[in-house]
């Protein structure tokens, strides 16, 4: 539950010049508790204790600048340094309701509400009671009571981390990139396929090549990549034959035409594969 502490301040629009001398609008709140009862001169001491916990296994590591403050309206500055016994001791605390903060450079602590009251009807010493408090909530919205005898235990919220982590160079994170994965897969196919085809059983290979030939996708793929499917394309162009003034299709050597057609038949998607294939054949 959060409170709205908004104080909408009406900027004095429409105020006459004479009236504008001192018009303070929009008062957030009023003082609730009257200033601490100064008449009561009785004083006591408040001891806080930092126990070892899983978040802070050894309170001995806390820096010596660790200290606690006790604040309330008109209470002045009350500060208690951390002792070697991991306690924080406020001497001479008068009656009142105090906000207790433990300030530390390395760890964060939960704020506390500490009430120093005289017991009902009794005229004995002052009694110290403590609760957890929640900033931004009603002061009377107390948390769980913290036992005050033997030192009020302060709860560690955790270690303070002041730094941002810089993203480090990580080969794995690059490999996780889908674009890289796609590239890697196609590279595997590109390199591994000819070997796979080469190592095939001759019969099985012939069967496979046959199937490739009849595969309708092949023609489309071949056309798309500029490879000869059924029709002649640029890839089918025989430079030597062209320069010799003969057409591969027409009167060229049979071997040339056979090689070309075999290349086309094996349904290669790329010329490199064809070259590999042919070299092996040779």
């Amino acid at each position, binding site marked *: 539950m*959060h*409170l*709205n*502490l*908004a*104080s*909408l*301040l009406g*900027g004095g*629009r*429409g*105020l006459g*010049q004479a009236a*504008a001398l001192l*018009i*303070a*609008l*929009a*008062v*957030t*709140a009023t*003082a*609730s508790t009257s*200033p601490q009862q100064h008449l009561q001169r009785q004083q006591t001491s408040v001891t806080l204790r930092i126990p070892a916990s899983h978040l802070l296994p050894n309170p001995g590591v806390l820096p*010596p*600048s660790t200290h606690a403050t006790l*604040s*309330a*309206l*008109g209470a*002045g*500055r009350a500060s208690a*340094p*951390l*002792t*070697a016994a991991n306690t924080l*001791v406020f001497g*001479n605390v008068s009656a009142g309701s105090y*906000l207790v903060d433990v*300030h530390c450079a390395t760890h964060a602590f939960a704020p506390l509400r500490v009430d120093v009251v005289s017991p009902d009807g009794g005229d004995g010493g002052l009694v110290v009671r403590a609760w957890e408090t929640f*900033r*931004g909530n*009603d*002061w009377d919205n107390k948390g769980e009571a913290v036992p005050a005898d033997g030192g009020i235990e302060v709860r560690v919220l955790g270690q*303070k*981390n*002041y*730094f*941002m982590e*810089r993203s480090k*160079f990580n080969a794995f994170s690059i490999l996780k990139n889908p674009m890289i994965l796609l590239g890697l897969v196609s590279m595997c196919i590109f390199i591994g396929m000819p070997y796979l085809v080469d190592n095939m059983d001759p019969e099985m290979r012939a069967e496979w090549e046959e199937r490739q030939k009849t595969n309708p996708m092949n023609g489309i793929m071949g056309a798309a990549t500029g490879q000869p499917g059924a029709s002649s394309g640029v890839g089918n162009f025989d430079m030597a034959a062209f320069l010799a003034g003969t057409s591969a299709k027409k009167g060229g*050597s049979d071997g*040339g035409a056979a*090689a070309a057609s075999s290349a086309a038949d094996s349904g290669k998607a790329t010329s490199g594969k*064809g*070259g590999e294939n*042919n*070299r092996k*054949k*040779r």
Partner: protein
Amino acid sequence: MLPPQLSALLLLALPSAVRAVFKDEVGHIDYHYELLGVPQQETTFFHRPRRDEKASLLYTLSDVGVLGAVNPSSGAVLWRQLLNGTITEGGGFARAGKGEGWVASALGQSVHAWDAITGRNRFWTDFGGEVKDLEIMEMTENERKDVLALFDEDGSSTVLRRLNANDGSVVWEFRETSKDIPLQVSNNVGKVFVISLRGTPAAYNLKVTVLDTLTGKRLDEIVIGTKGDVHSKDDVMFVGANSAAPIVAWTDASHRQLHVNALGTKNRQDFALADGTVSVEIHAPHLVQSQPHFLVHSKTATGNRAAVYHVDLKTNAITKAYELPLLPGPGAFSTSSSGANVYFTRVTERELILFSSASHGVLTRWTLETKDSKASAVHAVSEVVKKAGTEGGFAIRSAAVTTNDDWVLIRNGALAWTRPEGMTGAVAATFAEIPENEELAKSLEQEAHSNPLAAYIHRVKRHIADLVYLPAYLNSIPTRIISSVLGTDVPSADGKLARDSFGFHKLAILATRRGMLYGLDIGNSGKIIWSERVFEIAKGSKWNVTGIQVQEDAGRIVVLGSNNDHVVLKTETGEIIDSKLPGPELAAQSAALVDTSSGARLIPVGLDGTIRDLPSNETPKQTIVTRGLGGEIKGVVFVANGTSAHGSTAWEFSLPSGQRAVSVATRPSHDVVASIGRVLGDRTVRYKYLNPNTVVVAAADDSASTLTVYLLDTVSGQILFSSKHEGVDTGKHIECALAENWLVCSFFGQYTFKDGSAQSYKGYQVVVSDLYESDEANDRGPLGDAAYSSSLGPIDTPTGVVLPSAVSQSFILGGPISALQVTQTRQGISSRQVLAYLPETHGIVGIPRMILEPRRPVGRDPTPAEAEEGLIRYTPVIEFDPKIVISHERDVLGVQNIITSPATVESTSLVLACGLDVFGTRVAPSFLFDILGGFSKGSLIGTVLAITAGVAVLGPMVRKKQINMRWKAPM
């Protein structure tokens, strides 16, 4: 329900509001001087924190109220405690018992003891009176050593308490009600002596009260006549403590005779002092087992000499043993004892000389090898170790405070470390641009003014002359490339100061209360490039700097003081051009930096808020806001009167009775606003109320516990906006800041809400108010688009005076904040951060303005239009997330003032915090959008190399394959 892309944007916006420091940036973008303050002679000592280990540490309670331990071999601070939570003006006591693992200290009304190694507290006890002296009882009836603390309660009673060193409980208390002034406490094996002044200021006598160590009962009381030589407590120079035969010594006003009394006896002995003695100091060992010898150090105007005296333990007779010759300079003596032997170390301008207290023979001497020849030691503490075996071999470590407020450690004559402790107590600071090279500017000017041919020849000659630097430049290329790849800083060419293209390389000028000025090179880890003693400030007083101004064109700095003093010095070297010593009387409350027809000028403001007549070319163009004697606020304008102009009060603003001004804030001198309006989510615009002539005055009413914040128009004195907060603790930090069209105010509040919910609240909070020209969007208010307007001229609108429309919101803070400042960037395009010091956690926090946004929707999630604007849901609490602490892990102590300055790049603002520590960094409130920060050049080069290698390997393969394909055999 939010559209998914918007909620994603919202999620991104939350963490992006903060940008913490990267660990590798530490020490690269920031610098920090972890300081203690200038050590005081009486509260500085070497001490072994562990009885059975030889290693000792250096402890001091400085003149700013910091108790700390320093590693004498490295000069590093091990721990420190700001005892009162605020900077003090000297005083306090610190002592350590030999062989004990704790250090006792006292300041103000409290006595405390600290673990000597960890700096943790052993006990902290507050008493009613003011502590006048602190001593350790070396010998007690049990093993424990106890603490003796002397108090003065309300000037009416003298109280001596013996405190248990384990828990601070009172073992016994001696109380005496009298008008006597308690002075010091001393003890020997069997007795405790309380020395007080009895009588009238015209002629005090010394009263020695002898007490029993066990019970604190009075055993005896001795009054020693001083024949009217003692007029104040400062006249009594020394009360020997803990030595086998403690003494008390004083001189007459003319320093002709030294009077010594062995405590516990009635008679005094007189010794003649040499002619021309100006001041006298006494040095004696503090240990019971040491021989009862003491040294009298007498300074003349130009030199210093010393004499060693012995006390006879049986007869209490004091005899002069030997004299040390007169040497030039102030000189410093220090005492160290090892067992019964007492050694005196003399630090002169050139040498470090060691004597034994028994004879005048020099045991060893070293020539000082200090780099800084100007400074000489003022006071010192030393630790003498006699080397085992070797005959006459000594090792000395001497920690000395120099005339330049540095703390140096001299180890056997060589300088081990220097700590610039004088930088504590900074009272004014500013940034200065590094002056441009004047020679180049001059020769360019010369070329421009001569005929083209001559200019051309001159230019060619200049370029040929510049070839001298070519080999050096070529030499520097490899290191530059390597450092640029590794990301290390390129050291500025041969230590010369030069501006950089980012504008990070500037100077920070610091003026301290002790009359020192420092110039720090903030582009080079805040290195001190010059330090200059401007004035000798007497102990107990301080240099009250009212204004500091950098004249960039002239390359000068002008510093004005409150006592009619000023100093002008060169920015680059700190060389003093002109100075005037502070007068005896306070003459100025502040100084105003104003524009005049002859450029920007600092004008001192008199104590009553009036300003003297000024010549017409120095007449300020603006209204100067001053404070009158009665606390009223005045606007002073200058009226030309022939060749001069006199200031006349244009308006006066008196605070309502009971209120006092606690904080005044103005817009920063560099407060550029990039956009005059705020575009809202629905594409309408709210126009900012941008009035350069505004000032925020926060007035507190102590009796009613209220705080009223006024925004005043400095031209007309009109209240533009005011707000009142009830239940405000006026004794705690209240601070305001004003920038652009908004103001923030921080205070401690405790109140009940008025909304009928009967909820109450207690804690630190900050209130932020945005000012707009009109309540409505797309409306420029009564002034409309008018290019000019006057707050003095009549306004022919029915609404009267143009008042801003305000939107306010308050937030609860995780702790108190002080020294509020707003980041400044060059064009004001970057968003802003409110910088504040956290006095409790010793850090500097940069709260993004996006969090301190009064328009954050309350009690609901932001609408898509609001989310587009960057508004996030209102949460009442702003906890200080460690990620927004710009000083990260550093323990920045006692910051009084934060200053900011824009860099050349828009993204960055330079920050300097001073007061006790000095800390500087750069902040980028909207991220480093114009700098490739944290770019890993190494991985870039690695990638390029890997690709090159791949190409080199694959290239031939592919080529071979292609050729094979072309030449494949026909089948």
